[in-house]
């Protein structure tokens, strides 16, 4: 039997959040955390969490699992359970709507702030714009982001200033467009990032790198953005 402790909060009925304990029979299998949640949900339908693809590509089920942010659907129990206990909390730093569901609007607002779309003011050719494999390779490790918010909600700078600091996820995408050979808006993009908060609240502690379920490295991308700002200033 696996002991599971889950953060519960329903704004309509609970004055304050609390941890609820369950016991689950995993039949000795190394289930994913999401499988455990599905078993719990069958037992107690009032438990709320987000889930969709269940294979780690949609980014719905980011949560804090035994103290570390991750995706429930690709986190096997063997990698997270300590002392026979699984502890599930919502991602930290953003408001909780209910149980494991957080209000991600600030996270999305930061994403929208960086103009997350290609800008190219030259007329488009009749076929695709050409891009060499080397130029395309620069987007690897950037475009794969699934917007699960595991990184940004593991970042103290984002906890303190979620309205001003873009956060690792947004900055990873900022760099994805800065480095795309097809984008012509580099100067304007950089100008919008050169304030004391947007980029420079990153102090390089790399919590984002430690938790990213897709193995991406936002800190490195932020370093590249700083270098681009430096180069454009000189």
């Amino acid at each position, binding site marked *: 039997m696996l002991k599971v402790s889950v953060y519960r909060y329903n704004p309509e009925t609970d004055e304050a959040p609390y941890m609820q304990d369950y016991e689950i029979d995993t039949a000795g299998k190394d289930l994913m955390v999401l499988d455990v949640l599905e078993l719990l949900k069958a037992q107690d339908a009032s438990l709320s969490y987000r889930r969709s693809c269940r294979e780690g590509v949609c980014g719905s089920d980011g949560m804090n699992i035994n103290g570390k942010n991750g995706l429930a659907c690709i986190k096997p129990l063997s990698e997270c359970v300590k002392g026979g206990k699984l502890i599930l909390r919502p991602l930290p730093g953003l408001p909780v709507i209910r149980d494991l569901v957080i209000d991600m609007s600030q996270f999305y607002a930061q994403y929208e702030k960086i103009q997350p779309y290609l800008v190219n003011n030259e007329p488009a050719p009749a076929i695709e714009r050409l891009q060499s494999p080397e130029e395309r390779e620069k987007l690897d490790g950037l475009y794969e982001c699934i917007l699960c918010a595991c990184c940004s909600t593991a970042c*103290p700078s984002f906890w*303190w*200033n*979620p309205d001003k600091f873009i956060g690792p996820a947004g900055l990873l995408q900022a760099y994805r467009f800065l480095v795309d050979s097809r984008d012509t808006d580099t100067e304007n993009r950089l100008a919008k990032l050169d*304030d004391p*908060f947007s980029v420079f*609240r990153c102090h390089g502690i790399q919590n984002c790198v430690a938790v990213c379920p897709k193995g991406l490295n936002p800190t490195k991308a932020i370093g590249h953005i*700083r270098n681009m700002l*430096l180069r454009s*200033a000189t």
Partner: protein
Amino acid sequence: MGMITNVTSFGRSGLSDWILQRATAVVMTVYTVFITVYLLTNPDMDYGQWLALNSHISMKVLNVLTVVSIAIHAWIGLWAVLTDYVTVRLLGPKATPLRIFFQLGMITINLVYLIWALDIVWGI
């Protein structure tokens, strides 16, 4: 609120703050390394020798640079700390006057120490 934070921030942009933070760190490191090595290689140093060292014009320049660097570094660093923790998000509306109070206090103390220290190191 943006205006207030910008008024009390040191540089004009995030980049200039960031560069200054690194440049001043380099100066402080040079000073620290030099003094440490000097003290270790001169275990029997007396006051006269210490005074002579600090009277040398190169040392005076290094001292002034270091004092100024500490002031700038502290200004930028403490401003960052205050805008992390003393914010309306965390403390409610009282945070803004409170942060301005702390920032002005920080700036005043910083400037007093700076002038005092410059007077000492340059006046030797």
